[in-house]
């Protein structure tokens, strides 16, 4: 189901959390709302869910204006940052809660819960309590609970924020697969650009309550609209007075470079190497090279080199 946001504004006291935000979220997409803390991304999610009411603007889900509809009647699945498990209910009861509210028969609830637990790979934990689960398991339980009511849209607030790196990577991958399986329109909020790039097929970048740019992740990465998006979406450096990606720069001989400079440090990070160059224009930049490039060029600290943009990546 599509979501359409029209001129949404929300303030808390004197802070403007979201200001005149409009966006279209396509049916079946997995959209990431990306931004630093305080950018208004979580508030935007709460506005879609109805847990917060906007001061102005409308929220339309699947063609229906739900701006004044209570969250309990919006048919949305919401996963909270800390999962908000019902701590006194076991996993099955948690997942079945929404169905019980909808007065489904115990038999039907039982069958549906089993199905969902299989989907999120928690069958063996059905009788466990949230306190007995790991972070990743709680996250999956929360997802199953939200999916149980067959929501029109799935909203995830910082879904992987509280997990360690390994589990986080696994869950990201899993979420993407799950989304391909069930195709429910999903909006997730994150401050982690890598997570957003990896999982989402649409990005909305927010800053101080505004949408800065939206579109598909690769387009945003390659053609950022502002320096902010540029810096936020990936590694960046300044070259010849402009923001550039370090892997879009290359090191060449002194005569071929746009600007010459002296290498001040070389840091090897496995496959990639970061070479910092002090340029003749008084600025400093860094260039990302592969291990092989580094070895082939025989670079060392204090060497004079030329720096230029790689030609093949000029859009």
């Amino acid at each position, binding site marked *: 189901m599509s979501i359409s946001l029209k001129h949404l504004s929300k303030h808390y006291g004197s802070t403007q959390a979201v200001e005149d935000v409009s966006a279209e979220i396509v049916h079946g997409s997995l959209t990431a709302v990306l931004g630093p803390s305080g950018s208004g991304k979580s508030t935007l999610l709460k506005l879609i*869910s*109805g*847990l917060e009411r906007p001061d102005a603007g409308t929220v339309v889900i699947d063609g229906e204006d739900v701006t004044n509809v*209570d*969250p*309990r*009647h*919006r048919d*949305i*699945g*919401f996963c*909270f940052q*800390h*999962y*908000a*498990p*019902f*701590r*006194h209910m076991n996993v099955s009861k948690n997942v079945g*809660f*929404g169905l019980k*509210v*909808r007065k489904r028969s115990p038999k039907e609830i039982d069958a549906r819960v089993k199905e969902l637990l299989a989907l999120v790979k928690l069958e063996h934990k059905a009788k466990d309590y*949230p*306190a007995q689960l790991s972070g990743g398991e*709680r996250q999956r339980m*929360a997802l199953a*609970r*939200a999916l*149980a*009511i067959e929501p029109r849209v799935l909203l995830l607030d910082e879904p992987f924020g509280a997990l360690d790196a390994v589990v986080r990577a696994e869950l990201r991958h899993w979420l993407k697969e799950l989304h391909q399986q069930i195709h429910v329109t999903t909006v997730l909020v994150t401050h982690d650009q890598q997570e957003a790039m990896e999982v989402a097929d649409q990005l909305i970048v927010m800053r101080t309550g505004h949408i800065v740019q939206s579109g598909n992740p690769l387009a945003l990465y390659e053609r950022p609209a502002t320096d902010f998006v540029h810096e936020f979406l990936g590694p960046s450096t300044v070259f010849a007075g402009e923001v550039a990606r370090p892997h879009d720069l290359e090191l060449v001989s002194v005569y071929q470079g746009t600007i010459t400079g002296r290498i001040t440090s070389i840091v090897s990070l496995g496959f990639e190497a970061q070479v910092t160059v002090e340029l003749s224009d008084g600025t400093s930049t860094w260039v990302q090279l592969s291990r092989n490039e580094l070895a082939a060029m025989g670079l060392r600290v204090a060497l004079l080199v030329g720096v230029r943009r790689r030609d093949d990546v000029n859009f």
Partner: protein
Amino acid sequence: MNRNRWAVRAVVLVYLGILIGLPVVFLVIKALGHGLPAFWGEVTRPDALLALKLSVEVAAIAVPVNTIVGVGAAILIARHNFFGKRLLDTIFDVPIAISPIIIGVALVLAYSRIGWFGAPLARWGIMVLFSPLGVVMATMAVSLPYVLRSVVPVLLEVGIDEEQAARTLGAGPLRIFWHVTLPAIRWAVMYGVTLTLARTLGEFGAVLVVSGNISGVTQTLPIYIYDSWDQRFDVLGTYSGALVLAMMSMAVLAVLALLRRRERRLRVDLA
């Protein structure tokens, strides 16, 4: 280091012994000193039994009412913003902050036949002062804060995420309260209930002022004990009554200790 710790323990034990332990031991000795039959005879005197009955009846009314009011007000204070919230919060502390006798006197002022509320009630034939109704009201007033004060911090600690999650899943306010909020705060509620019960059974000052101390009608157990001591000079009656009240309070304390342990064991960090 180790010796210091023992020294501190010894000081604390001696202190507790002087203040509480020895007096209680003497109470037991005095109450049972003339043998169990004598003790039993004192406890089963008609006026003693009536006092015990009134104490239990008052608790049976005051505790449930204050529990409902306390939980309701706790949710109001922890979950809602409204004009006068700070004032409400402060009013709930009044019975802890000021002497019960002041509450008693204030009730007399308000509910005497010439008082603000007392006059119209008297016209309807309702007597508050010198009646069991007054005893109940005074007891409810002094034991009002305990449920609220135990529940509010837990509500704040638990947070609103679970309630909001239930809401997005389609649950209405009543279902959220019974199935999400109440289970999360139930030990705090129980803790508050036992504190309220202990306070209710032991209340003396406020009740003394409003009850008029009418034997067999408005005498609760603490008032009966005071009456035996101060009016009837009945030493054995005093000690026997006191021992019964002490045992009831101890039982409440024991339940409280169990609940505390339970609560600590069940408090699991879900963050």
